[in-house]
């Protein structure tokens, strides 16, 4: 143990603790900008400098380990002066349009500047960072004039996702974070996961805002339908200031009706439908020596990643569409016929925890209803903004129920929102279909958790099924290599691009893994509360097959609920 004094208070901490961490234990909060609790220490913004007795210079608290007998001052006049001088340099490069910035109120720079009481005029000429505004991507807007070069997005994109479309270019004053070769983001191998937005402390990276388009459609008198993803009820409240893991399903339904949606549906329903199709596909491949391992394809960021980096392994992807796209196809066909609405008059909206869903709904494959199946996909943070814009006092909203018939989802559909959830949902159904027996214990604890790669082996009716669950695309590299080499030991693999799965998706309020743990706890609790917890027992799913689709993998299912993929290898050239 190391003994030191911080601002006059003695403390004992473990060796290897940084000054920043030690100070936190004493409830001393040293300001930071580049630091992120789930990322590597960067020590580049230098806002966290502190004074250490006996040292000439002011070391950065985030990167300096404590030493025995150290005497630290975290807010001496010398320290405060240095911090204000550094902040002044940053602000002299940063646009001062906070009021109309997408991060207004949630910007870390804004907060630190406010805390530092930046009350004197800036001594330097205002020179906003010279960078091209890039809204080419349907998911991510880059305004690098706001970038403070903290390097968080670079780490998220390269270390966590292995995509590497963000890197520093130029040097010194001219340094910028950009995609390679001056490309626009849409022309790169960016998978639209939005993990860069999650870590961006300022408004340099933000979600492509599609809220205006929804108002336009309402105004145009369209028949507005909306589906909300399994994780939205878990994460939306957080965007409105609630604690992580606060579940507000009924309030969200109510708020969506207030905003102007005619029908509010639950993507849990099509999550169940996905399990019916994907589970059947898996059984079919198992029993007919089809291509294995089968890999889930409900995550559009992962699908684009596979199309780009695993372009020669696409036959491993399940042909089942994602729940969002199944919903889109069903609403403009079955639902439209049933309700006698011309599908061209329907505006089908989805609320997703995901920025890549914006890309997915625009894919040319997804026009099986004869129209774009899902018209507009918005993220959780956009819905939170719409709720505020509408003046809805969320706290006081009474719970309301989803609309029938697509308002019913099982617990299996619900847990789609977490890493491991799709696998568990599939196993619940596969087990019962294969054995004809009822599962005694529905929880497959082996597939739960937050480790980057988890594996499990189950024996169902004498047959061993080996599965793997992967989240964070960097972790999928090895898995793809195994498949390429023909040495993959697995039969079935679930891949989610974002760490934590959809509850860690790029369209939520900024996450930390500590928050993701809370969200994950909440999602499994929701599963437990639901009366139906297996996809094949969802009565409305059964009804849909009876009335319309026939059976899983039927001709109609194939047309509406399955798709194909194509190589995007060219993006790497």
């Amino acid at each position, binding site marked *: 143990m190391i003994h030191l004094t911080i601002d006059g208070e003695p403390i004992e901490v473990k060796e290897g603790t940084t000054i920043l961490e030690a100070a936190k234990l004493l409830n001393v909060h040293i300001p930071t900008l580049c630091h992120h609790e789930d990322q590597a*220490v960067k*020590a*580049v*913004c*230098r*806002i966290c*400098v502190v004074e250490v007795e006996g040292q000439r*210079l*002011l070391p*950065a608290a985030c*990167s*300096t*380990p404590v030493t025995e007998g150290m005497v630290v001052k975290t807010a001496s006049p*010398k320290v405060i*002066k*240095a911090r204000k*001088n*550094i902040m002044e*340099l*940053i602000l*002299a*490069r940063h646009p001062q349009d906070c009021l109309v910035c997408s991060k207004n109120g949630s910007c870390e720079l804004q907060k630190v500047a406010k805390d530092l009481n930046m009350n004197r005029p800036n*001594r*330097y*000429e205002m020179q906003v960072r010279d960078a091209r505004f890039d809204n080419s991507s349907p998911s991510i807007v880059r305004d690098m004039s706001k970038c*403070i*070069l903290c390097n968080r997005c670079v780490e998220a994109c390269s270390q966590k996702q292995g995509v590497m479309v963000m*890197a*520093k270019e*130029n*040097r*010194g*004053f*001219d*340094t910028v974070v950009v995609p390679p070769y001056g490309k626009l983001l849409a022309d790169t191998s960016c998978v639209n996961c939005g993990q860069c937005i999650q870590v961006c402390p300022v408004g340099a990276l933000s979600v492509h805002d599609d809220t205006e388009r929804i108002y336009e459609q309402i105004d145009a008198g369209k028949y507005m339908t909306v589906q909300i993803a399994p994780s939205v009820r878990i994460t939306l409240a957080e965007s409105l200031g609630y604690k992580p893991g606060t579940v507000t399903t009924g309030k969200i339904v109510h708020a969506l009706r207030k905003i102007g949606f005619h029908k509010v549906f639950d993507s849990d329903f099509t999550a169940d439908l996905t399990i019916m199709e994907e589970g059947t596909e898996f059984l079919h491949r198992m029993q007919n020596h089809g291509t294995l391992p089968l890999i889930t394809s409900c995550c559009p960021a992962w699908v684009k990643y596979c199309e780009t980096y695993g372009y020669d392994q696409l036959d491993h992807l399940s042909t089942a569409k994602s729940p969002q796209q199944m919903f889109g196809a069903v609403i403009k066909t079955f639902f439209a016929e049933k309700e006698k609405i011309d599908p061209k008059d329907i505006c089908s909206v989805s609320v997703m925890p995901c920025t890549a869903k914006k890309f997915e709904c625009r894919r040319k494959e997804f026009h099986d209803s004869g129209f774009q199946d899902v018209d507009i996909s918005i993220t959780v943070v956009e819905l939170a903004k719409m709720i505020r814009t509408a003046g809805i006092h969320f706290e006081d909203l009474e719970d309301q129920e989803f609309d029938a018939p697509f308002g019913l989802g099982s617990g299996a559909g619900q847990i789609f929102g977490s890493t491991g959830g799709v696998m568990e949902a599939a196993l619940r159904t596969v087990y019962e279909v294969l054995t004809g027996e009822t599962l005694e214990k529905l929880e497959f604890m082996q597939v739960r958790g937050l480790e980057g790669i988890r594996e499990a082996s189950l024996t169902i009716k004498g047959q061993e099924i080996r599965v793997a669950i992967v989240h964070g695309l960097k972790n999928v590299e090895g898995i793809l290599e195994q498949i390429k080499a023909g040495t993959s030991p697995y039969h079935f693999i679930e891949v989610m691009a974002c760490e934590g799965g959809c509850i860690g998706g790029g369209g939520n309020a900024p996450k930390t893994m500590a928050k993701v743990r809370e969200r994950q706890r909440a999602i499994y609790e929701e599963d437990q509360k639901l009366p139906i917890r297996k996809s094949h027992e969802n009565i409305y799913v059964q009804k849909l097959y009876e009335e319309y689709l026939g059976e899983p993998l039927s001709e109609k299912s194939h047309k509406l609920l399955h798709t194909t993929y194509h190589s995007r290898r060219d993006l790497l050239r």
Partner: protein
Amino acid sequence: MEEKRVLLRNRGKIDPENAREYIAAGGYEGLKRALNMNGEEIIKELEHAGLRGRGGAGFPTYRKLQFAYGAPGDVKYIVCNADEGEPGTNKDRILLSSDPCSIFEGMAIAGKAVNAHVGFIYLRAEYSYLVPILEAALKTSREANMLGENIQGSGFDFDIKLRSGAGAYVCGEETALFESIEGKRGEPRFRPPFPGIKGLFGKPTVLNNVETLANISVIFQNGWEWFRTLGTENSPGTKLFTVCGNVKRRGVFEFPMGINLKDLIYEVCGGMEEGHELLAVQTGGASGAIINASQIDMTLDIDQVSNSGGRLGCGTILVMDDRNCIIDIVRNNLDFFRGESCGKCTPCREGGTRLYQLITKISQGKGSVKDIDTIQDLAETMRLTALCGLGHSTAVPVLSSIQNFYSCYLRHIDKDYCPVCSEEGE
């Protein structure tokens, strides 16, 4: 005054490409001696010799070896910092081109001390024309079994690889140099961990300047007692000085540590040209302090220069006569630093350019006393908070020039005509 040629003993006398000639002149004897010593003994010898780094910081060389020696791990590296980028400095180039084997010898001895088997020479990109000389010297050294496997039958293996960057000054900073060798963008890392524990490719690494390594060879060839007879108590040995600027005789000179700066300028280099007076001297390269003519009676050893507020650094002496303007010199300095900032940390990335803008404003006669205050305030913040030495040292010439040439700043603010700045102005 006569030069004392220790490191430059072979300059012009042997074929630098031929290790046999180096050996005939007594070369690699130090390595042979070290091969019979264990790591602790080698480090002890260097401790007794009192050798301090010649790259700029003057850190005791034996301590660097000690860190890597004590660090756990089977793979360790020796790195020679030949990224000589300090403006006006040529001393490493002279060593590399005239006696490269003395550097290899020092690396091999350091390798023996810490049990490293691979050495890297990180050669300044602009020195790529030296590659054929170095490759030839490496080849002939291997042929003489002074490098390679089982050196002189001792069972110790050591070989050296050449690497080069793309010309960034910051890559002379040890951790940025590692990043560059690793194939990444040349940006410094924060410390700790120090290179002795976690350096190149994450392994314990000993990094030394070219001149330091050449000193290791002569210490082991002649013994530490001999080495101690040269130089001063706290800075034993000789030093290569690069004198540039407005003196009659410019070049690289070798003298024992402790030579007087005034003697170096007037006795060795012949003083100013006729009709001109000394204005200022900058010691230690672009990152050194700028002193005025009344301050040059100064002993040149590592501690005494730093006691007087500057730094000996790599031993570069830039002499300026009355044809120069301090503001112009500082502006030139800052132009260099803002261009060489890697952009990683805020104070250096933003501050370097801001200092340049402010000094430019002053040089154009548009400045105010407030601007001088801002310069001082910002330079001090950079010195205190920047991530690496580049950001810290940007402040040194600025702050020292304000201290030692305040009247010059005031003249520009009072818009007195400055022939130097006005030529470049606007």
